[in-house]
């Protein structure tokens, strides 16, 4: 019987990909290998962010337009902690994630009982307010002057300087996030989320407390965004309010939508496909019009919604494969029951 890709036990698949990723920096690609590595690092960072966003619209079916707010909060938390208190990177990431989660809870608790459209608008307003605060509260964030000179992270006392070191770091972060997200997804909590996405009223009548689960999802999503922001701050070593505009939220949303709302693998593939595209555009477009690259994302969104609203790895297909794998687990002798 022919074995399909979706039938391979997840463990081996992920291990294989991990080994591939670890070998990547050492492939002989000539002089531009560092540049490519940096693109891959960016792509992996966006994978982390997209996985975080995926929890809210993908698992819960709520549109979050303000994700960049948490990304920014995480980045500024990391930047300020490093600059003022010289906190170690390994403490900063959980702190940034925690800060993100706190703001996620604060924002989510009153707003998650709203209907989809209104919730989207409120999240959007929130992220705009965050950027406004970052830009204007100079005493806290130095506003438009940005935060330069953020120290790099250190592993056992050795500060990271090489591109491959940062790549390994982001891969590590991705693994942690994947660990959390996959464990949550295939559990009672994950099922409760899916039920909210499919039919809120039926979910309620089956005993799922909507607010509790929505806020939890939102907080975890915000925490992941915060962690991603922390990495960004310590990698790029300079942050500025213009890096956290609304378009970033849309970009990340685009990745999730393209990959398939709710599909973990699809989201990662989406990031891998679309982020290098941005780089291509950077080469093609003249300098002052670089922000027009978001045009592509607008087009992608519209086209996807028109012709493949389920993304490249549709949610339905994903559930089918999951069920088939579960069936095989229960009846390995192939009795067909």
């Amino acid at each position, binding site marked *: 019987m022919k074995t399909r890709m979706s039938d391979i036990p997840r463990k081996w698949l992920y291990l294989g990909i991990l080994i591939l990723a670890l070998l990547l920096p050492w492939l002989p690609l000539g002089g531009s290998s560092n540049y490519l590595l940096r693109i891959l690092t960016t792509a992996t960072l966006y994978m982390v962010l997209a996985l975080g966003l995926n929890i809210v*619209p993908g698992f819960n*079916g709520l*549109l979050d*337009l303000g994700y960049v707010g948490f990304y920014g909060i995480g980045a500024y938390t990391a930047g300020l902690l490093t600059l003022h208190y010289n906190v170690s990177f390994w403490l900063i990431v959980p702190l940034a994630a925690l800060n993100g989660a706190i703001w996620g809870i604060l924002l989510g608790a*009153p*707003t998650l009982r*709203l209907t*989809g*459209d*209104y919730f*989207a*608008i*409120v999240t*959007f*307003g*929130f992220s*705009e*307010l965050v950027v*406004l605060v970052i*830009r*204007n509260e100079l005493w806290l964030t130095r506003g438009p002057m940005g935060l330069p000179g953020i120290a790099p992270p250190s592993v056992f006392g050795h500060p990271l300087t090489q591109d491959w070191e940062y790549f390994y770091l982001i891969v590590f972060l991705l693994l942690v996030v994947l660990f959390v997200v996959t464990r949550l997804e295939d559990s009672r909590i994950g099922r409760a989320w899916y039920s909210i996405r499919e039919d809120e*009223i039926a979910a309620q009548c089956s005993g799922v407390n909507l607010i509790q689960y929505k806020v939890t999802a939102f907080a975890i999503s915000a925490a992941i965004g915060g962690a991603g922001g922390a990495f960004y701050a310590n990698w790029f070593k300079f942050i500025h309010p213009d890096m956290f505009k609304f*378009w970033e939220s*849309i970009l990340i*949303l685009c990745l999730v*939508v393209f990959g398939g*709302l709710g599909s973990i693998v699809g989201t990662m593939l989406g990031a891998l496909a679309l982020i290098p595209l941005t780089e291509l555009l950077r080469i093609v477009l003249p300098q*002052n*019009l670089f*922000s*027009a*690259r*978001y*045009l592509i*994302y*607008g*087009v*992608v*969104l*519209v086209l996807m*919604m*028109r012709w493949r*609203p389920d993304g490249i790895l549709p949610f339905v297909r994903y559930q089918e494969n999951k069920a088939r794998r579960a069936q095989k687990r229960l009846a390995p002798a192939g009795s067909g029951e």
Partner: protein
Amino acid sequence: MEDLLGMSSLFLQQLVNGLTLGGVYALIAVGYTMVYGVIELINFAHGEIYMLGAFLAYTMVTIFGIPFFAAIPLTIMICACFGILLDFIAYRPLRRAPRLAALITAIGMSIFLQNLALLIWGGQIRSYPRAVLPKAFFQNAFVVGDITMTWLQIFILAVTVVFMFILHLIIHRTQVGTAMRAISQDKVTSALMGISVNRVISFTFAIGSAMGAMAGILVGLYYNAIFPYMGYNAGIKAFAAAVLGGIGSVPGAMLGGGVLGIAEVFGAGYLASEYRDGISYAVMILVILFKPSGLIGKPILEKV
């Protein structure tokens, strides 16, 4: 005593400015609210039509040399057609799709149009050269103490009132308007009653876009600054105004626009001016949290 007079004239001047701004917001907000009323979709790209109106009028007047008062109706007609086109291409195919898909499409269109404008017209801010505009605009119509009101402001207020009046007539006195109101209450039954739903929706887009374009022209004049991202800013504020008044309700949008314009001018004047834009966001969030049906709107029940 003089101090009091000074304060009150500042107050009144702010009021005048606020009403002017409010009128513009109301024009844009009405477009949002009408479209939401008939297809329950927040047309994010509406702000881009407003921006397009500003750019088109500017281009016509400066590059093609068309006289200002002729450029206005031309721009409005082009933008109305553009609104119909937008519906036809982006929203009509998704009439039966889930809300999330339509919302994402709207956002996508908005981003696409903004950046398209950026590519076409470039990023620098355009202004009308003084020569092409009627001189009267910049002269003061009347001066009461310290309060001044230019002809331009009167023009804006007058246009706003006239357009609102025409809109009111259309909605309440014509067949199309009645059809619009019917569809916003029950789309399926309206179709069964013989209303051509798609045509009426196109018409709604046309009217909303026309009003948005007019607002764009007016703002381009008033602030004398036209740039591709202006739709983004004004769009959000107008949406906040629509939500404030009660989304789906046209008088609500008018009221909301007025209130928001005044709130913004006063807030910027008396509180912090950097947070000027933040006022609309804050108002929007507060309204959605505490009274989602807005000042005039009615809450909707879901049938189980």
